[in-house]
């Protein structure tokens, strides 16, 4: 800051004014920004870029998405066409991943399975997000009795064994893609609701929320505009970790015969089929679906871990 003339003059009558020469400050040097200002998201993105494992996961997932969308189109064979003369052929130029016991192309089926896995994972994460954020946001913001009551309910649901509930719902409604997503969502949103509520409870006492309140902003708007944007980090991390568990659940259910039904292809179904023929040496039938399940879960897990580190404001330098 620059000293003004009259401030100097007022120091003392005994001191001559010319003892003091206002220092000419280099305005530009003072104001120069040492490092570019980064928004929270940009900063997080830079930190994520540095995490090699997480980036590898992200790149794999992008490839997987491309594989899921275009894989079935790339391959000259269709998902369900059976060629009984070409059973259990090993991988070759014609059938990249080999064929199964009905002569179906394993490559096309694996790509089709990627569609199902990604669809189940993304849908489950979306539904968890919507229900969890609304529920947790309201409980955390209202607080008191409402919060108590709402969280009691969540605690009871949280105590339910997740896969058992899913299995029960599958038994009752019958196997299928919609049922899987429905079953996963019945108890899946609980974790998200707990996280959002915890965050909202903490943030709602900050001054900027109080400021919004004094302006007469409605509760819904405060939750939407003030609270949720500040809880996005943990929410995104939770979503990236929901996806692999949903993919695992789908594969698990299909594997025990409760998930996707033939003739549709899912990694779990293919693994189950492949397992029964493993003693005959048709390794490719088991290898490709299980490889893709594992790689996908791996990619989501490392990406989730990386995001957790990147989005944590405490680690910001």
């Amino acid at each position, binding site marked *: 800051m620059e000293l003004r003339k009259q401030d100097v003059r007022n120091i003392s009558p005994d001191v001559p004014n010319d003892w003091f020469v206002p220092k000419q400050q280099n305005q530009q040097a003072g104001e120069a920004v040492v490092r570019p200002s980064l928004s929270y998201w940009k900063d997080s993105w830079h930190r994520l870029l540095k995490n090699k494992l997480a980036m590898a996961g992200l790149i794999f997932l992008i490839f997987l998405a491309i594989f899921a969308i275009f894989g079935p189109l790339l391959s000259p064979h269709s998902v369900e066409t059976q060629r009984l003369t070409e059973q259990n052929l090993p991988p070759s130029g014609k059938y990249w991943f080999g064929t199964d016991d009905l002569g179906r192309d394993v490559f096309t089926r694996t790509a089709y399975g990627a569609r199902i896995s990604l669809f189940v994972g993304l849908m489950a994460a979306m539904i968890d997000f919507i229900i969890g954020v609304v529920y947790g946001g309201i409980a955390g913001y209202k607080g008191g009795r409402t919060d108590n009551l709402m969280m009691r309910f969540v605690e009871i649901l949280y105590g339910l*064994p997740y896969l058992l509930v899913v299995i029960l719902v599958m038994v009752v409604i019958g196997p299928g893609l919609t049922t899987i997503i429905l079953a996963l969502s019945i108890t899946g949103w609980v974790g998200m609701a707990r996280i959002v509520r915890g965050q909202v409870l903490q943030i709602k006492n900050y001054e900027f929320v109080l400021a919004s309140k004094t302006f007469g902003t409605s509760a819904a708007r405060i939750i939407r505009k003030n609270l949720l944007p500040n809880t996005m980090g943990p929410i995104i991390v939770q979503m990236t970790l929901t996806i692999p568990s949903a993919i695992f659940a789908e594969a698990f259910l299909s594997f025990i015969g409760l998930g996707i039904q033939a003739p549709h292809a899912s990694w779990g179904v293919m693994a189950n089929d492949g397992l029964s023929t*493993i003693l005959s040496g048709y390794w490719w039938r088991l290898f490709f679906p299980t490889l893709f399940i594992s790689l996908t879960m791996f990619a989501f897990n490392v990406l989730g871990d990386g995001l957790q580190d990147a989005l944590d404001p405490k680690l910001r330098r």
Partner: protein
Amino acid sequence: MNTYFIKRFVAMIITLWLIVTGTFFLMHWVPGSPFNEERTTNAAIQKNLESYYQLDKPLLVQYGNYLKALVQFDLGPSIKKSSQTVNDMLGRGFPVSFELGLYTLLLAIVSGITLGVFAALRHNGLIDYLAMSIAVLGISVPNFVMATLLIQQLAVNIPIFPVATWSSPMHMVLPILALATGPMAIIARLTRTSMLEVLTQDYIRTAKAKGLSPVKIVFKHALRNALLPVVTVLGSLAASILTGTFVIEKIFAIPGMGKYFVDSINNRDYPVIMGTTVFYSAILILMLFLVDLAYGILDPRIKLHKKEAK
């Protein structure tokens, strides 16, 4: 402490009751009766069967009777295996599943903690990267994939271990390994993270300054505090091991409870589905409760009743 116990106990009972009620009405909501496929039965036999299993009574009466029997730990007869009751099946299957689950949990805890501790002590070293790669793989590879890999490698390619059934210790190796990798990986990662945090604490420096041996520092001062977060996940780990036993028992043809459960689902044997679900849930809820208690005992800073009073 007492009020906390009572509150938790009441919550446990309510959760269990909700599960029973939910499963009961879900099961009866399913279209079709379990006798439909038996075409040979004539109308009179069918009627007798239905009255034996109380399927002719109003739903609410059936529900009441089921609850009454349940309080006396009677889970009813099986429909598909007419001479057996659900209690018989659980009585035969549970010891096997319990053995499988217990060994798995022990293996996961011991090897997970060991891996985690070594990784933390050699932070960013070779052992650290190796242990953490194993851990991430363990989390990413589903247990049924693990099981099939183990069978292919250690039973088919190099026939070291026998597969199927549960008759000798050699038979137990592969199923336990397959089931334990996931939980082991989770424990290893948690132990590493909390160990790394604890090792930077002042009291560890004090212990070092006192000239204590590294072994004593790690086991007496660091590990005890580092294990608290690990204890919290034990409940949910037990749950995942329990559900994991379904597939593992199916793959390895182990005559445990999970096999009965999966079979009963495929056969639509309602009393067995209900009985096993209720039994599993009771075990899980009890586990979560015990874990909370253990947490309070291990960490004297946590006063359960005070937390509740807030």
